[in-house]
């Protein structure tokens, strides 16, 4: 049963120490929920970037919310390195578990299928694998002469979080072709979603919209948050705000600049976010 609450209540559902999965930076990133987590001073999060992190995880790291992350990469794309991430990794304020994109997708698919591990080709001989004690290389277990292969343990986050353009009153949520969101929700114990708006039409009533819809079965709670992915972009709703992200990249280069950013953009909006 999906419940409808506000963003601040949604953030309250994520306790200190939770393991959360966040989608990649091009779209569907729940920035308003991330700001909510920072406002309520959430601590010791483990964050899984699926598979690449950006401004959302950089903000969480800089605000001291994160204990550990797993990602194939973290960057601000055209705006360069993610400054709080690079600083925190070099100074060892957080633990970084380096991975590679298909390993994250595959390990989530293991949880999606309810199996304890999944094989993946390639990767053997990479130092990523050399530094991952939880990964195993085995000889072709079926004895068909295919050589060694990597096994990845299933990843099961406590929460998958994302922001979508649209939900319906039954709690079904539009994901379009960003189908890793489905895998993330299937794999996680709970899924929390913010949406631009809620429609009276049932998204599953029409085959065309049903094909791009995540059913309410997988979704625990939804909050309406107009502009909830900003300053990042949201497919078919708004483009990423390049100037805002450039300003963030510049400010976040120093501790004091980052604190100013938080004061200007996150702590001041508390009232607005609660509405």
């Amino acid at each position, binding site marked *: 049963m999906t419940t409808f609450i506000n963003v601040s209540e949604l953030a309250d559902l994520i306790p200190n120490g939770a393991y959360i999965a966040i989608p990649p930076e091009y*779209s569907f990133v729940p920035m308003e929920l991330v700001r909510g987590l920072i406002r309520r001073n959430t601590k010791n999060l483990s964050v899984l970037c699926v598979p690449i992190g950006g401004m959302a995880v950089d903000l969480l790291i800089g605000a001291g919310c994160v204990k550990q992350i797993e990602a194939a990469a973290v960057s601000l*794309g055209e705006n360069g390195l993610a400054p709080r*991430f*690079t600083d925190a990794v070099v100074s060892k304020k957080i633990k*970084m578990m380096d991975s*590679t994109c*298909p390993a994250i997708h595959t390990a989530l698919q293991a949880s999606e299928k309810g199996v304890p591990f999944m094989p993946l*080709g*390639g990767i053997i001989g990479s130092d990523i694998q050399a530094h991952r004690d939880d990964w195993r290389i085995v000889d072709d277990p079926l004895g068909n002469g295919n050589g060694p292969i990597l096994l990845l343990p299933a990843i099961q986050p406590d929460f998958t979080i994302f922001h979508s353009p649209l939900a319906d009153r039954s709690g079904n949520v539009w994901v379009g072709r960003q189908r890793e969101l489905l895998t993330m929700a299937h794999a996680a114990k709970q899924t929390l979603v913010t949406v631009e708006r809620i429609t009276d039409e049932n998204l599953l009533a029409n085959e065309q919209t049903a094909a791009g819809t995540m059913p309410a079965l997988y979704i625990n709670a939804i909050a309406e948050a107009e502009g909830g992915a900003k300053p990042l972009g949201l497919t078919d709703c708004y483009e990423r705000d390049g100037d805002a992200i450039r300003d963030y990249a510049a400010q976040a280069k120093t501790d004091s600049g980052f604190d100013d950013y938080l004061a200007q953009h996150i702590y001041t909006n508390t009232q607005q976010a609660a509405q």
Partner: protein
Amino acid sequence: MNYKPEELLISVAASLLNTPDIQHVAVGAASPIPGAAALLAQKLGGGELDVTIIHGSANNTFTDGGRELFDCAGQGRVHAFFLGGVQIDGQANINLVGTGNYPDLERRFPGSFGSAYMYFTVPNVILFRPEHSRRVFVEKVDFISAPGVSDPGIQRTGGPKAMITGLCLMSFNAEKAQFKLESVHPGHSVEEVLDNTGFEIDIPENVLTTAVPSDEHLKLLRAEIAPEIAKTYPGFAASVFNIKSAA
């Protein structure tokens, strides 16, 4: 016609994609020059070349989420891909993670992305690194995001074929695990390449000069490719082609 350094690199990369072996090129994250090259090669090939630009929805026909690129490569359906490196060594090992003794890094870079998989599954990986210096082209990388070659017995259908830098074009011989200098860009010399490379390169007797982009290609690039790549990389398109994205 005058051209910018980026336009030369786009033209060199596009020329590597115009071969019958390559029917589908995919372009990953943070790759504006490879993305423009793929779109140029597609135009020059009369639209026969399939191009997938992963970042965002422009020029991206994938519908199965983030995993589709890797599944598609695993199926053998991605014939060319571009990878870079903070460091690249003479065996074509690439490092996208950082410098120093991992995990005690001196400098941290974004991370390995999908390199450790794409390098094994895409038959024509083109390494791309405009900065040609000894800090990039090292004898041995500090961290192997993806290995250039593998032992026999390891399943591997892909690997590096060529490398484009700001100074030259090289090919890679997997059996010898060595790069060979193919051509030096106009205005640069073999000596300059050697001075700025920290590993051994096979130098043939006659090294060609890289072909400059033709006027026709430059016009196509500026008029048709630039607005297209701006949909994915607005900052790049603004700085190189001086256009504002309509997207």
